[in-house]
């Protein structure tokens, strides 16, 4: 464990911030389960994302406090979501979300990945946002959203609502929702939605376009 800390070299220092070159240090000798990850330089991240330095600092401080090891795993995601949505069961949706964030499928999300996704979602262009959303829906990453995938996603979202809703949830509510979605999105009625269809359909919908701008000032 001491080796992990001792061999790190300091990157360029900004005022009050420490950024070290990123390294994945899994100490195999001692079979430690602690992975310590440090993100790339602040300047580099600033260049890659749409956040300012201050915003990155705030985000990293919060991130580091919650995950001192520098990575987020799926359990943490589920816990976070469970706290935000205590009424129902948010674990399924959190799982899909995790996969959407974890584009490399490594099982854990580092700060860079987290930041990139946030940047896309909050400050990206409409197309970027919609692409990200498409990737969220496309569970198996085959480039197509079929009805099963969509049903899974929609069921997961409805699960977050919990049991006590008004009007009461019926068993085929998700299915109806999925049908409506496909009605709108699937232009060529081939039973799957491609990225282009998706983006096209969304751009036609005023509501969606407008609501995509809602979360711009979240940070």
């Amino acid at each position, binding site marked *: 464990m001491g080796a992990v800390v001792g061999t790190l070299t300091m990157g360029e220092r900004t005022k009050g911030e420490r950024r070290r070159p990123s390294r994945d240090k899994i100490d195999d000798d001692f079979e430690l389960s602690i992975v310590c990850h440090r993100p790339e330089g602040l300047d580099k991240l600033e260049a890659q994302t749409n956040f300012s330095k*201050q915003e990155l*600092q*705030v*985000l990293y*401080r*919060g*991130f580091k*406090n*919650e995950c001192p090891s520098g990575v987020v795993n799926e359990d943490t995601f589920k816990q*976070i*979501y469970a*706290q*935000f949505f205590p009424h129902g069961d948010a674990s399924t949706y959190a799982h899909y*979300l995790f996969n*959407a964030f974890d584009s490399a499928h490594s099982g854990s999300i580092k700060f860079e990945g*987290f930041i990139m*996704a*946030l940047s896309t*979602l*909050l400050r990206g262009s409409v197309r970027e*946002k*919609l692409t*990200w*959303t498409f990737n*969220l*829906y496309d569970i198996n990453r085959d480039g197509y959203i079929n009805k099963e995938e969509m049903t899974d*996603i*929609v069921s997961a*979202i409805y699960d977050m609502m919990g049991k006590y809703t008004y009007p009461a949830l019926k068993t085929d509510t998700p299915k109806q*929702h999925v049908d*409506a*979605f496909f009605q709108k*999105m699937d232009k060529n009625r081939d039973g799957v939605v491609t990225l282009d269809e*998706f983006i096209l359909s*969304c751009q036609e919908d005023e*509501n*969606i376009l*407008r*609501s*995509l701008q*809602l*979360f711009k*000032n*979240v*940070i």
Partner: protein
Amino acid sequence: MAAGVATWMPFARAAAVGWLPLAQKTMPKPPVDKKSRSDEILFVNVSGLRFQTWKNTLDRYPDTLLGSSEKEFFYNEETQEYFFDRDPEMFRHILNFFRTGKLHYPRHECIQAFEEELAFYGIIPEIIGDCCMEEYRDRKKENQERLAEDTEAENAGDAPLPPDATLRERLWRAFENPHTSTMALVFYYVTGFFIAVSVIANVVETVPCRPIKGSIKDLPCGEKFSVAFSCLDTACVLIFSFEYLMRLYAAPSRCDFARSVMSVIDVVAILPFYIGLVMPENEEVSGAFVTLRVFRVFRIFKFSRHSQGLRILGCTLQACASELGFLLFSLTMAVIIFATVMFYAEKGTKGTTFSSIPASFWYTIVTMTTLGYGDMVPDSIAGKIFGSICSLSGVLVIALPVPVIVSNFARIYHQNQRADKMRAQQKVRQARIRMAKKGATNAFLQHKEDGGLQDGDGDSTPLCVKNRSAFEHQHHHLLHCLEKTTNHEFTDEVTYSEVCVTDSLGFRTSRSTSLSSQQGATTTCCSRRAKRRAFRLANSTVSVSRGSVQELDTLHVTKTPAGTQYPQSRSSLNARTENLKLNCDDYTAAIISIPTPPANTPDESLPNSPAIPGILRNSRSSTFNTQETVKISSL
């Protein structure tokens, strides 16, 4: 919601973008965030120790003082920091809670101090992390037990009786707390003596005495001096019966009393005698009667009222009931196993003493407790081997639960010791506190004497220039206002007694106070004793008005021996004094403390004694048994 959740809020909101294409309705507008989101460092100054932290850190817990807008009340504009006049050492832990999300309990701190800090900062102690929770709980429980003990002991033992207690209540108190009155103490010792006498008589009457002349056989003393012993026995039983009946009469709840352990012991102790009276001189029945006499030995348990150690022992046994049960159970198991084994091992031996398994029980018990009487000894080799295993295991089995019992006893014993010590020290402490208070309040009288109350002229008198804080000034002003309001003045005992001596006119005051003073005076002249009583002068319509800005420390009740009762009650310092022409020949003062607020109206209008206002002598020494006067002036 936990702290970290606030950090993840932006992420959760961003992830909501994933719902948008699915949404069937329009999304609501997001809340407008007025304040700037840029993070800033806050300075928190706690009694000089400066802490710095990000604003976001504090915002994590919005329902605490530091996380909410409540902290704005502590903001110092000039130094641009939040100033808290609290313990800086404790604040460290509080701030760490904000930083890490876990609250730790510092082991070296007092638990109450810690809880007070938590309460101040709006943090509930339930979120103490698991690492420290056990320690916290243990210490909290210990503290609560200790406090509960103290208040209980205080209330139970020394709480004074209201003056209108019935005979029954008084009797019960005398029985339960023998040190409250002389009579009770006498009774306590007498019963103790007779218990001892009775037990010794029981023992001695079986000792063989020299035989009567002419007879060869040794007689037990009981038969030789049978008359003497039976008289003694009768006397003891009469006393015990009387005591039991009195207790039964005085008990507030007779059913509960009858069911309590001590009363059962009392009954069992005296019952054999009465049964013997009732029983006819029948041969067959008297055999049973003899067995009953055994129960006389239970009289020794009556000592537990007299001895705290016995009570502690009883408590311990009660507390360790489960350990004792376990001990018994494991012993029984071991006894049965080994007895069986020994029986079968010794079965082959000729003329063996191990005639049956129950007979082997005796051998097993004697061996396991390492007594080894030697009346039963195994002969065969197998028997000897198992016998040795039995004795080795006996030591182990008995040694296991014993430390638990011992530690319980130690704990209860120490608790009792501590309670006693605390009670003894409490009185000393309170006396000292009273003295300190008195010193402070005498300052007002001193101030007055120095002429500080000259209206409008205070500064010109050099005598007035003393080291007095602003607080004292205000306090004195307040007392002065009070005096002006009631048109009475504060004074002290010496002045009072002087004035009283000079006025030799007898004057009757209201009867109610005379009654109460009588009660107060007759209780005791011993100041130490009297301090413990709270004397409530219910209708003190008397002459004396007691003003009290603070707690009244002492009250003097005086009584004239000349038949006319002039109760004058007066606090040693804050009392308003009134001019009263009294017959004050001889005073015995009993000191009592009064917690009640003052209320008084002088009901007789009396001419002002001209000499009074000038005499305001101050005496710093509190001599309680001096003559006193009460000055009363008409409103």
